[in-house]
């Protein structure tokens, strides 16, 4: 408990650990547990309790389940068998590979949202109109988006129709292993970039307009303004968008996958989240728990790496 409180204090004050906090006290003497000293802990207790009961305990329970069996072995400890099974499972291997593909699309979304926000900020003609239009897909349900793009991307749908008028052969976008997942990811980017776009616009609000004016007076062209003024000023915003976009991509693709490809063809568009759902549907909840632990590990590792990058960038700023 006290460690959690210390960690929170460190985050709030930016101080680095116990040494600083203790220094005003005479060494070697413990302070008595007065009511005043207990109060802050009592105040955070409800939140900690809710977190522990509804977040940590189910999480630990899930990890625990992943070491037990399914069906006849329900409740029996089977060690790492579920993990061993997953590692050689075709669908798990495919979903692990696909996580890498998903991560490759993160910079594309960040770049896309960033460059469009820049244009709006620089007040290109019609910027008010585009500002609303870009945000519109965010308010649509992914199921509806999936249904719309199922029609647009169908083998004999309007997109292929348009392509054929300029003599490009039609492609079954959602039915081929090479194109299924990238197509879903592009639709996901289209559907969600509005949020990143809005965060960028908020970042621009904090940007020093005089800097930009100065650059313009010095004769910087658009590209030079972006590279030398806008990007450095927005480094913190960019980091934040990177982290949220990554989490969104790893945990928010289920509805689109479910409606657009159902994981297929074969296992070409499986992602861990979809696999977890499938395994549970096959009455193998313990195996699904093991897959969930893998997903948790992936998100944790990537998240930690990004937080480290974020911290370094903040120091530089």
């Amino acid at each position, binding site marked *: 408990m006290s*460690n*959690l409180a*210390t*960690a929170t204090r460190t985050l709030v004050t930016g101080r680095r*650990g116990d040494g600083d906090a203790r220094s005003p006290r005479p060494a070697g003497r413990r302070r008595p547990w007065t009511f005043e000293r207990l109060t802050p802990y009592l105040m955070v207790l409800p939140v900690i309790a809710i977190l522990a009961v509804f977040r*940590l*305990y189910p999480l*630990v*329970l899930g*990890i*625990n*389940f992943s*070491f*037990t*069996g*399914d069906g006849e072995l*329900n*409740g*029996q*400890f089977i060690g790492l068998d579920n993990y061993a099974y997953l590692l050689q499972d*075709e*669908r798990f291997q495919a979903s692990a590979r696909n996580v890498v593909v998903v991560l490759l699309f993160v910079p594309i979304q960040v770049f896309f949202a960033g460059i469009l926000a820049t244009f709006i900020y620089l007040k290109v003609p019609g910027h008010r109109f585009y500002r609303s239009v870009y945000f519109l897909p965010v308010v649509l349900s992914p199921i509806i988006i999936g249904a719309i793009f*199922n029609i647009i*991307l*169908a*083998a*004999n749908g309007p997109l292929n129709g348009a392509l054929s008028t300029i003599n490009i052969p*039609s492609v*079954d*976008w*959602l*039915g*081929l*292993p090479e194109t*299924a997942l990238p197509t879903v990811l592009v639709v996901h980017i289209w559907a969600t970039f509005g949020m990143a776009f809005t965060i960028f616009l908020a970042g621009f609000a904090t940007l020093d307009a005089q800097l930009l004016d100065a650059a313009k007076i010095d004769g910087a062209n658009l590209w030079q303004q972006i590279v030398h003024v806008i990007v450095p000023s927005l480094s913190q915003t960019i980091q934040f968008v990177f982290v949220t976009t990554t989490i969104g991509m790893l945990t928010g693709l289920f509805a689109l996958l479910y409606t657009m*490809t*159902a994981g*297929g*063809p*074969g*296992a070409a568009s499986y992602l861990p989240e979809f696999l977890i759902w*499938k395994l*549970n*549907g*096959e*009455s193998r*909840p*313990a195996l*699904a*728990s093991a897959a969930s632990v893998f997903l948790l590990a992936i998100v944790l590792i990537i998240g930690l790496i990004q937080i480290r990058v974020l911290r370094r960038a903040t120091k530089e700023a």
Partner: protein
Amino acid sequence: MKRTIMTTAVAGISLVALTACGGAAPAPESDSANDSSGGETLTIWNWGDADEAAAAYTEDVTAAFAEEHPDVEVEIVNQPFDQYYTLLGSAVEAGTGPDLALYNGGTQLKSRADSLVPVTEELADLQDQLAGWPAFEKDGETYSAPTFLQGFPIYFNKALFESAGLDPAAPPATWDELSAACEQILANTDASCFALGNKEGLGIEFFLSGFGSGVFTPEEYDAWIDGERDWTSDHATQILQMWADSSADGWYNDGANSTAMFNDSFDIFSAGDSAMVVALMSGTAHWKQFDEFLGDDLGFMMPVTANDGTSIALPAEGGIGYGILNEDKKDLGVDWIRASVDHDALAAYSLAGGQITSDTTIELDTDIASANEIVAELPGSKPLLHTALSAEALDLLHRLGQQLLNGDVTVDEAAAKLAAAEG
């Protein structure tokens, strides 16, 4: 920071220890069977009524049951179908399951037979009146009575056959004739030969069960149903090859792998954009639905002969039926099952809902020719090949079906994977 991580880890590990080793699914409660009170209620689970006809059938069944047991309160609980067996499994294991539950015949019922009460003796007198029993039998015991039959008949569009220069009165009877007919349809019309939606991978199920009796000998067929399957045998690889070839020869609509089977692919057939389809005989995507669009142009044909020594049969088996979970209410349960196959209730439902009922004494009073032709083939029908497979094997088959269609795996690779998965 390091201390925080350590503390969290220690706390986590101790929590794991505290939870010991509970299972992911709820564990059964030993005394749950004796839990049922003397109160006369009968709790029944199903997945709800799809339409008005189904609702009317449920009312008829409830009324038939109430005639026998006016004092018993029947509580019907509708569960969502996509989570049905997960919810039911959890409830049964936790000892909070219903007294009766609705089951799909074949794999779904047989894999859960351990939790059901056998009613072989109690339903013996219905044996001759109803068809489709094998889907509800395991190891010589009967667990339910089939209410209606499900199967994969092949429907065709007579008008498209005519414009392709084929005789609608004499549909193809062999695989070679079918191949030639497809060539002709593709050459002379704008339609595809077969409508196919394989987004969920279901297409190969329909193909395997739909054409199986023309490929496997009767002995191989029966062995397959009994669980003795050899995926690498000549005839098993042959049917996988036929599936791959049918795609390579362009039989299907564009983008079959990205088309949903329910109901996009059946809409293609209804709209007259494909000449044939392997569809259903009850529930949905059946003769009554197609008749609304195609009318007299709707035709029905039997599977085609691919090998000598085979015996063509309509693939059909018991579709759904109620199983008894609570031993203490066995008598009431048996009467509910009897009510569910009540002659008048089934007769009314068959026509209103487009069902082929299990009751062979019911004369389907319809002028839809394909429905009468299906009923005429029922006595020689055989169980579906795919419902004999395990859930894992079926999922693998779905994925391989998509890959075979695209040419991403070879037939031999697919056969080897299926053989390995089936042990």
